[in-house]
């Protein structure tokens, strides 16, 4: 008890304070619960469910038609009528029904008894077994137990029989009853079936939005379960997550399982309707959190007749339906992502493995969303309180960089750009890859796809540069050799090609000489504008050229025949026809725009020796062993009586004198003349002796003491001790240039040249003598996407971009800085002030990257590094040594190129997921990828078209093909087997509302501009078999399809073959001397490789690619010999087969098998002999021999208007696949619509009445068999001797 009644504080007040504090604690506790309950995802889920309910309402509304109601009513009536009909026979139904019930009861009772009985039996069997276990072995001992078992088993069997009996009775009774009630049952089933969709929708609705009036119980439960606290017990709103224990995320160097809770808010992301169509179509301006209320609940408006709630219409004024914005929409590409049949099902891949971001975050901010531009970020900040989470290492990639993550699993990249099933799924990334490949970034920046033998990403490395290196790698099973060639020309024999003056000019600024060159610029950049660099830079340039010339190795040059006068005019024609234009552009041929090789318009100003050029075009590998320029077989040949040396003519053409605009400057006779000055007009660069000394001292002081440097320069001799140590090491330092002989200015210059080549890494792209063992100079890029941003050397870039950063306009400094540009883009983005989508994309991209740079992000760093690599030296050169200045050259990239490269480089993270997620194609898919890389490497598509143009529109005539009288019926079957028909109907509609179809074909006649625009149409030859949905009705080649211009929706250019197309047009215009028809012109051009895999045997193609012999006589050029390995030839050969789903690498030729031949011989003695006759029989009755050399008989040229020399037939046996050959023989135009080979075996003509009963089909089959057994027959039958008077041959349509 208290000692005194006086308390220090008033007890009443204390009570009040205590109560108040208790209430405060209660209030904060409730506040805490509320704060937890108010998580934004709950609100989003609520709206998402409402939106789902509304979508169901919409679907229900579609069923809410008069038609539906009528039908439903009708069915209702039918049910009623049927019920009445059954009721009329109630007297029969009742007893039947009773009988069924009775039997059912009986059956159930007996089943139960049987079950019990079986249990009893099992027990006594077990008892018996236990006795055996306990050692009761004698019959006597066991007998009682067995008897018990037998008794129980007997009972069970008896009951089973009874039950079967009963079953029979039961079934009969049921059938009888069903028969009686059949009309009613059927009517009910029909009604139920009709209402399935309705019921499904109503059920779905009940689940997420039960109607409180009609579904009070469910609605109450749902309401109750959403209350705070209670909702913790399995309420309807909950966190959804995908757990990916194998697809880990690296957190602080530890691999942690990935938890993706994105689907908590993106609830509809994987909802698709039938046909894999997004159920909640994405629409950036669709229903979102900010406007959902208007769409779902409407707003209250006061009208004349009172207050009303108006919902915003989901139909826009243009008739389109408002879709769903994030987070309510479905993924826009369900074919490729998320759905179970797609290659990336959501449950297996989650979300953040592709998008990055913080999967475990459940708020907008914590998820680390990333805006595509700062203005969007500002908008998000306003709406969702977004701010950049600096600490999460994997923020989501913004839209413009989102393809980067594909690289984690798709190390081959190619499948993301060229894919038969999904098209270009990551076009930007693929473009970045292509740019890196073409510009050779890997020469300086190694992109090693392997770490200790384990694949970690795309592999882009230079191939081994020396035989020793190649050997070492081959011997080490854990290392893989690089495959990329240096992208620049080899400089090993540089001196033979040009002059020092030209070379110095080129090195200084390549684009000055050739604006479209890919060679980057090393000099005159932003960190070389000071007077110091102005002095030293010329020494470096002169040094590099001095080094290259002095080290240049001797090259033996060829000379054209004595007395031969190269003809530049003829050279021009040969240049255009022999395929040069497939890779090179030239000002004289403005239509041909190839950029695989350099533009050759100015070649005469660069090349100092015509002999060199002559040797180069004849045999490129002599000059540069690893060149991609093929050997074009430009051998001297006889034309008429005269010898023509195409290489010399082409060289003469290229070295003809031209004016500044690239126009030929002819002599008095109008003939082109040789540019005699050539590269000599380029003056050598001037440099100062002091600058040479300064630079020499700078470099020498790195290896020698200052005193020794002085001594060396004074005595003009390198110190002995140091020289000896240089001689003794394996990898020589640059000072090796100074150790032999006296040190003159020339040797110093060469030393500076070598130093500069080392410093600028010229050998990353060029083969330079002395640098075979040099390593790439740049930062390796294979894990650059994870580079610690604090390690980026940002220097004063922010300040630089504040004042500069934009390229000059017309030679004057740009008044606008990058910071101003970005600010303007930001404001324009906020206010929607862009004039075009293109401008928006370009400018907001700049703002995005600038913003990234300011937040020290990798993307921003990369962007500026590629835009202006030396800008990072802003205000740094003043405090640096000259040789410490940045040296990355400036590449001619556009900003969109840079964005593409950023996608690629940021995707290089060297964090491959578990092996099962990495895309490792096998078989045909791998063959395709390997082949695609080679197509690009050797520019196969420069000449050959590998995919035909796709025409989408509505042809005038869609009559399906009917078998003609002349057609061999089997030809159609074979055609459909080789080329299964494709459904040509598209989802696209013409303006008139008709459905468009698409087909692959070739243009045969462009629209005539003279025609009335209404009637203009183009004509195409159909190359594939297509169906229009009707069974057994097809359109097949060579159907000539007319498409009116107004009914043409789109037309692609096909893939590749730009040169072939150019040559066709050129030949038609008479570029080769005479004008020819389109079909002839096509035969003159490189052939289309459409479905080549079905045509040729892979082993033959393999051999042909390595050593292409002359195949066609119609073409004006030959397939050149590429500088490829046998491995590459094999891959390329496999590629064509893989693309067309044909067998590879080996093919069966059943026609050569004894079984086949003996079966034939059974019906037809001397089968092969007769077949041989069909093939070799000379005119007038035979026809093969008219155009082809066959059976040892050479081709004899006849009337060139009638006879075209076809390929020699001795190759057929190894070259063609039997089925293809058969179809070709049946009717060549089914395969190649433009061919001039006629349909020789027509069903209605009997060409060889005496052979095979005159049956054209049998003759065609026999021809194929003869050709497939060519050598065997030739051996037996001997050479065909009769000469064919070719001009009277029955081929070439002569007989038709």
């Amino acid at each position, binding site marked *: 008890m208290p000692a005194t009644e006086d308390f*220090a504080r008033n007890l009443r007040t204390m009570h009040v304070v205590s109560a108040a504090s208790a209430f405060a604690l209660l209030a904060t506790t409730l506040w805490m619960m509320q704060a937890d309950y108010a998580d934004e995802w709950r609100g989003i889920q609520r709206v998402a469910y409402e939106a789902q309910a509304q979508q169901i309402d919409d679907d229900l509304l579609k069923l809410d038609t008069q038609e539906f109601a009528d039908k439903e009513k009708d069915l209702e009536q039918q049910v009623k009528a049927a019920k009445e009909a059954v009721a009329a026979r109630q007297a029969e139904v009742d007893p039947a029904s009773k009988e069924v019930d009775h039997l059912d009861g009986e059956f159930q009772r007996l089943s139960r008894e049987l079950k019990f009985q079986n249990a009893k039996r099992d027990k006594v069997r077990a008892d018996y077994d236990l006795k055996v276990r306990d050692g009761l072995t004698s019959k006597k001992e066991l007998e009682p137990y067995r008897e018990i078992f037998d008794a129980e088993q007997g009972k069970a069997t008896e009951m089973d029989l009874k039950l079967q009996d009963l079953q029979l009775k039961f079934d009969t009774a049921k059938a009888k009853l069903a028969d009686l009630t059949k009309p009613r049952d059927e009517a009910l089933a029909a009604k139920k079936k009709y209402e399935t969709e309705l019921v499904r929708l109503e059920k779905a609705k009940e689940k997420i939005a039960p109607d409180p009036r009609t579904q009070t119980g469910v609605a109450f439960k749902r309401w109750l379960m959403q209350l705070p606290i209670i909702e913790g017990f399995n309420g309807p709103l909950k966190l959804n997550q995908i757990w990916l224990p194998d697809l880990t995320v690296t957190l602080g160097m530890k691999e942690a399982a990935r938890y993706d809770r994105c689907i908590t808010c993106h609830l509809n992301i994987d909802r698709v309707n039938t046909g894999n169509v997004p159920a909640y179509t994405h629409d950036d301006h669709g229903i979102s959190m900010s406007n959902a209320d208007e769409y779902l609940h409407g707003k209250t408006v006061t009208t004349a007749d009172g207050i009303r709630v108006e919902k915003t219409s989901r139909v826009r004024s243009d008739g389109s339906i408002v879709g769903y914005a994030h987070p309510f929409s479905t993924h826009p590409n369900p074919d490729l992502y998320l759905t179970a049949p797609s290659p990336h099902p959501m449950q297996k891949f989650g979300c953040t493995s592709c998008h990055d971001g913080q999967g475990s975050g459940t708020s907008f901010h914590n998820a680390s969303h990333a805006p595509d531009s700062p203005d969007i970020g500002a908008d998000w900040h306003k709406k969702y309180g977004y701010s950049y989470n600096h*600490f999460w290492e994997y923020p989501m990639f913004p839209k413009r960089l989102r393809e980067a993550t594909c690289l984690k699993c798709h190390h081959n990249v190619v499948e993301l750009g060229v894919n038969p099933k999904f098209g270009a799924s990551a076009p930007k990334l693929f473009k970045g890859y292509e740019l890196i490949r073409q510009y050779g970034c890997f020469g300086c920046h190694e992109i090693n796809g392997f770490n200790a033998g384990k694949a970690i990403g795309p592999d882009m490395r230079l191939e081994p540069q020396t035989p020793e290196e190649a050997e070492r790698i081959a011997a080490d099973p854990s290392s893989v050799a690089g495959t990329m060639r240096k992208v620049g020309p080899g400089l090993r024999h540089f001196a033979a090609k040009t002059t020092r003056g030209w070379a110095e000019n080129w090195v200084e600024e390549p684009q000055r000489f050739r604006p479209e060159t890919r060679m980057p610029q090393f000099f005159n950049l932003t960190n070389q504008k000071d007077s110091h660099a102005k002095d030293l830079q010329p020494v470096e340039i002169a040094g590099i050229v001095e080094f290259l010339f002095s080290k240049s190795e001797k090259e033996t040059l060829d000379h054209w025949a004595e007395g031969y006068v190269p003809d530049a005019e003829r050279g021009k024609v040969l240049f255009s026809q022999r395929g040069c234009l497939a890779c090179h552009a030239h000002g004289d041929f403005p239509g041909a725009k190839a950029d695989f090789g350099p533009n050759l318009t100015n070649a005469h100003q660069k090349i100092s020796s015509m002999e060199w050029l002559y040797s180069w075009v004849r045999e490129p590998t002599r000059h540069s062993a690893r060149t991609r320029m093929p050997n074009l077989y430009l051998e001297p040949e006889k034309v008429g009586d005269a010898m023509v040396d195409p290489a010399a003519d082409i060289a003469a053409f290229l070295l003809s004198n031209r004016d500044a605009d690239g126009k030929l400057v002819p002599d008095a006779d109008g003939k082109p003349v040789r540019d005699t000055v050539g590269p000599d007009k380029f003056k050598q660069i001037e440099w100062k002796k002091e600058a040479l000394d300064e630079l020499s001292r700078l470099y020498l002081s790195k290896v020698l003491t200052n005193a020794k440097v002085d001594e060396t320069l004074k005595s003009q001799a390198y110190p002995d001790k140091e020289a000896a140590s240089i001689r003794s090491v394996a990898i020589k330092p640059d000072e090796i240039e100074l150790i032999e002989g006296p040190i003159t200015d020339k040797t110093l210059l060469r030393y500076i040249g070598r130093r500069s080549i080392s410093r600028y890494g010229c050998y990353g792209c060029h083969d330079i003598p002395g640098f075979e063992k040099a390593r790439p100079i740049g930062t390796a890029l294979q894990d650059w996407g994870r580079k610690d941003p604090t390690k980026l050397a940002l220097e004063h870039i922010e300040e630089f971009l504040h004042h500069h950063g934009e390229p000059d306009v017309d030679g004057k400094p740009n008044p606008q800085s990058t910071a101003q540009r970005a600010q303007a883009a930001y404001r324009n983005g906020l206010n929607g002030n862009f004039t075009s989508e293109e401008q928006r994309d370009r400018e907001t991209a700049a703002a995005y990257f600038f913003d990234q740079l300011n937040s020290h992000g990798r993307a921003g760093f990369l962007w500026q590094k590629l835009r202006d690599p030396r800008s990072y030296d802003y205000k740094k050169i003043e405090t640096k040594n000259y040789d410490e200045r940045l040296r990355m050259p400036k590449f001619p990239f556009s900003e969109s190129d840079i964005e593409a490269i950023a996608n690629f480089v940021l995707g290089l993270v060297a964090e491959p997921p578990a092996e099962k997620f990495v895309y490792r194609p096998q078989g045909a898919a791998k063959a395709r990828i390997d082949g695609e890389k080679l197509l690009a490497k050797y520019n196969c598509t420069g000449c050959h078209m590998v995919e035909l143009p796709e025409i989408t529109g509505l042809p005038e005539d869609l009559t399906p093909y009917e078998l003609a009288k002349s057609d061999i019926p089997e030809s159609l079957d074979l055609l459909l087997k080789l080329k299964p028909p494709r459904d040509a109907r598209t989802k696209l509609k013409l303006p008139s509302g008709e459905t468009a179809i698409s087909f692959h074909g070739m243009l045969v006649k462009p629209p005539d501009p003279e025609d009335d625009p209404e009637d203009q149409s183009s004509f195409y030859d159909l190359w594939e078999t297509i169906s229009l949905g009707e069974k057994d009705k097809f359109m097949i080649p060579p159907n000539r399809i007319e498409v009116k211009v107004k009914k043409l929706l789109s037309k692609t250019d096909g893939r590749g073959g730009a040169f072939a197309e150019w040559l066709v047009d050129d030949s038609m215009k008479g570029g080769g001397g005479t004008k020819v028809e389109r079909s002839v012109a096509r035969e003159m051009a490189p052939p289309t490789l459409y479905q080549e895999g079905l045509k040729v045997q892979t082993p033959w193609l393999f051999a042909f690619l390595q050593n292409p012999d002359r195949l066609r006589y119609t073409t004006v050029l030959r397939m050149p010999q590429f500088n490829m390995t046998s491995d590459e030839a094999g891959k390329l050969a496999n590629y064509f087969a893989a693309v067309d789903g044909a067998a590879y690498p080996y093919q069966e030729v059943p026609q050569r098998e004894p079984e086949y031949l003996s079966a034939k011989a059974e019906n037809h003695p001397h089968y092969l002999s007769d077949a041989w006759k069909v093939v070799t029989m000379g005119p007038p009755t035979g026809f093969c021999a008219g155009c082809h050399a066959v059976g040892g008989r050479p081709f004899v040229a006849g009337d060139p208007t009638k006879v075209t020399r076809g390929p020699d037939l001795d190759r057929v046996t190894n070259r063609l696949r039997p089925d293809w050959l058969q179809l070709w023989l049946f009717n060549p135009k089914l395969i190649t619509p433009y061919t001039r080979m006629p349909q020789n075996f027509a069903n209605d003509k009997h060409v060889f009445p005496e052979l095979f009963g005159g049956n054209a089909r049998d003759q065609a089959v026999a021809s194929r068999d003869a050709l497939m057994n060519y050598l065997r027959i030739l051996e037996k039958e001997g050479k065909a001797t009769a000469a064919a008077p070719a001009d009277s041959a029955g081929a070439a349509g002569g007989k038709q």
Partner: protein
Amino acid sequence: MTPHPDLTSEVIRGIGWLYLILFAMNVFWTFQIGRRGASLTIIGAWATYATMLGLVGVAHVTGGAEPARFLIRMPAGFKALVDAGAKPELYFTLSIGLFILVIRLRETLVKPTVAWIILNGMVLFMALSMTDYDFRQIVGKPDNVPIVSMLFIVAFFTWLYFKRAVDNDQRIAAGRPLFEQEDNEKVLVWPDLVYSEMICMVVLTAVLVAWGIVLQAPLEEPASAVRTPNPSKAPWYFLGLQEMLVYYDPWMAGVVLPSMILVGLMALPYIDFNKKGNGYYTFNERKFSILTFMFGFLPLWIGLIILGTFLRGPNWNFFGIYEFWDVHKLEVLNNVNLSEMVWVDGFKQPLPVAAAGAEWHWQAYYILKRESVGLILVAIYLGVLPMVMAFTIFRSFFMRMGFIRYMVFANLVLFMACLPIKMLLRWALNLKYIVAIPEWFFNI
């Protein structure tokens, strides 16, 4: 788009609320002094000041639409001045100076009006400084908020102590009874103590919960053993210890000195022989012990926490409160060991080194020879100095304490002094270690 906006509308509004709170406080204050019968001039002055605060507050809350043109901000000149003086030695000297000043002026400072003016000054300084981006970044960090409040709390309790102590000292001087004697009201455990404690507990829980909701803990990068944050800071209460690491080897700063602090605090009752000051506040009667404790607590512990929190930035460099924490800022940190000073600078000869491959005792000999001066100095400091002090400044202490107690006391004092001494040596002579024997992981 602007990564470091100097001011934003939200910030201006926030500062406005701070001014309004200060306005409310001063209105209350004005009424208080009015009730206590202050002169009209003074009331008028306070009223005017309060009104101005109110107007400034309203201007902030309503007028922040264009942050770029907002006028009421910390003058750039002042900021530049503060940043230019941002050096640890200056900071430490000023904090010692402030400490002395507080002791000296204690009788003035405890006057309510003076204290109130200081409080106003502190809040105004805060509010004006908040207009600076870099200041906001440091002070506004959610985990620095307790340290900011600690500044005010420490100031308040120090003030409270001095108020009581000065009062009692005056009473003793005037021969009046002590405040504690005069106000000798014994209170009951129940309900006065336990009930109050329970209420405090409940209120504190409520405050913590509310704090937890309002100020979310910041989400930072995933922990990684290979990549530590820059700067890596200890929890705020250990920042004083962390600061010692700048001057001492980890084993000293992290093991010996903290242990000495703990042991020293435990030993206090056994060392203290002054019977006065028991159960009441006083300063004059316990000058030595209070000054010693306050020196250890205020400049050496709290001062270093503030330094570590607000002034140490990336790379553990020293930054002004208005200075951008730029990782690229470099400071010259070339320090030399005492042995180098002695051998290289003094004797002009190389450091003694044992011949390569010498036996361990030869190595030990050379190491000891190399560090002999430092070792001797340390020995003098810890072994001789206490005796010298015993016969000079601590003569009376020594007499009353006896040898052992005195030695414990003297060593504790010397250990406390070794931090400022080392600081001084570092700043004055760039001295790294007095004894540097990395071979044995022994550095002082």
